[in-house]
């Protein structure tokens, strides 16, 4: 089996660097141990996904990252900010995915990095625009039910779409 190309190594390192950077931002107080644990769990899951060739590792890292953002929200610490969190999340996933993809198709490193920056910045910008107000206001009243409904609808739509896609394999 041929060794992975340099693009795979470099983007994997970039993805892990992003995850480690995010892990260094922890909250003070009683939620700190959980924040730290979840924070370091993300790069570990990423490493498992990329080094051992388990694609589920990247997905688990993304899910853990999202949960950790919630923990930070409970702790009342928005550092480094929701927009930056979204940016780091997308950048982490994109770089990990490029690392994975470049093992089976020729992906130029510069193009992949430029695309990652573009998509990650777009995600950060979108979250920044939505969170201009007070995001905590969404957590009160009927908001959780609405959020849950929206989430369930999105998941249903995606699963239906994926079912069609996978059914054609």
């Amino acid at each position: 089996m041929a060794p992975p190309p340099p693009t795979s190594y470099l983007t994997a390192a970039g993805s892990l660097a992003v995850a480690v950077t995010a892990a260094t931002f922890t909250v003070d107080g009683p939620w700190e141990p959980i924040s730290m644990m979840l924070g370091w769990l993300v790069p570990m899951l990423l490493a498992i996904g990329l080094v051992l060739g388990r694609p589920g590792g990247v997905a688990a890292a993304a899910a853990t990252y999202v949960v950790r953002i919630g923990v930070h929200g409970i702790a009342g610490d928005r550092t480094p900010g929701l927009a930056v969190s979204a940016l780091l999340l997308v950048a982490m996933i994109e770089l990990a995915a490029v690392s994975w993809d470049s093992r089976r198709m020729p992906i130029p490193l510069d193009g992949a990095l430029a695309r990652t920056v573009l998509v990650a910045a777009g995600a950060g910008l979108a979250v920044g625009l939505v969170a201009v107000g007070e995001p905590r206001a969404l957590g009160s009243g009927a908001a959780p039910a609405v959020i849950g409904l929206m989430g369930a609808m999105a998941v249903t739509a995606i699963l239906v779409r994926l079912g069609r896609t996978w059914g054609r394999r």
Partner: protein
Amino acid sequence: MTIGARGRTVTLRAGAYLAAVVVAPFAALALGDPAPVLVALPVALCLVVGLMAPLEMEPSLRIVPGRDRSVEGMAVPYRVEVEATASMAYVTLDLPAAAVISEARGARVVGSNGLVIVLTGGGGLADLDVTFGRWGNHAITGQVAVQGPLWLTDQTAVGGDSQSVVVLPDTATVRRLVEPLMTNMHAGDLVSVGRGAGIEPAEVRVWQPSDPPRAINWRASARSERLWTTDRHADRNGDLILVVDSITGAAAEIEETVGEVVRLVASLVEAYGRGRHRLGLVSLSGYTRWFGLDSGALHEHRLLEAVMRTQAVVDPVWMAVDRVFERTVHRPTFVIFVSPLVSDGIRERALRLAAGGIDVGMVAVDPSPWIVPPGDRLRATAHRIWRIERRRSLDVLAASGVAVGEWRPDRSLADVMEEMGEWRRRRRLRI
């Protein structure tokens, strides 16, 4: 030709996005904080946009060579054609060993065998120059991958060419060859010992009634009262059989020598072919194969293709080899063995042919450059003994009337031919 196209698949990226989107609402509900949903919102948007793409991108790949024959180290033009309903195509070529993309037009080369082609109007093409560093019969296949929007889905197809390229060994130019001692009855460039129509004068003798009037030497006849004629040596060609010995022995790890044997034989086929000799070939690679004596460009090409199929063999079926020699080798054939001479069987056959009055030559390829010198004393002693025995085999062959020339990487084939020719001249002087 597209061999097979797989359906659209969801990428790892989509899986990770999906995990984040699925977890976010539940995390928000459980923790009582909307932050996870906010962060996952653009990710969900990407998922929806990416998965709303058309289901099939229908990629196809064609790789067409510009010519069907080439020589080692010479670039072969290839055209890569991709069709797909996407903006970019990522092509991975399955190049043979020692083949490199020396130039690409219309595509960006990534790594040693990757191409990125921009697709416009559902298709794109690139022109490549591929240099093959090793002889053989090569066909290039490849795989094309196209990405859906936001790279959340992809689709691949395997393609290639039904037409392979024959890459001939890079042959050495040899000006002076060891010519056969005996000639056959066909017209050629060699001076026969027999009399006949030719250029080389043999003697001036008294005219006989059967002599053609054109042979009368009028200058000599004018000074005499009798008619004189000039006898000439006939211009003939020779019969040559090249024996390709690719026997490397068990666990000898000298397979590299087989490549050199092939190069030398290809050079000899070309060189002797230019001299209008009739050529034959016996190959001891696996099944013993042989080609009868013939001449012409088509026959030469057939021999070269047979030579390129040579593979390293541990031990041939000697009974079959003997049968082939009995069938193909007769006087006045000149038999040239091209051999690493690691097998006693080859030496014995060469000696047997020489003893039977056949003109035999031996181009011995020295395998030493490919043998790693042993570290321990015992193996080093064994290696030294093996070298002495090989040297002795060469001496025995030379003493038995076989024209021997030893080839090493620092010697050209012309040097080897010179060595064999010199041996013959010295032997003739002794006789």
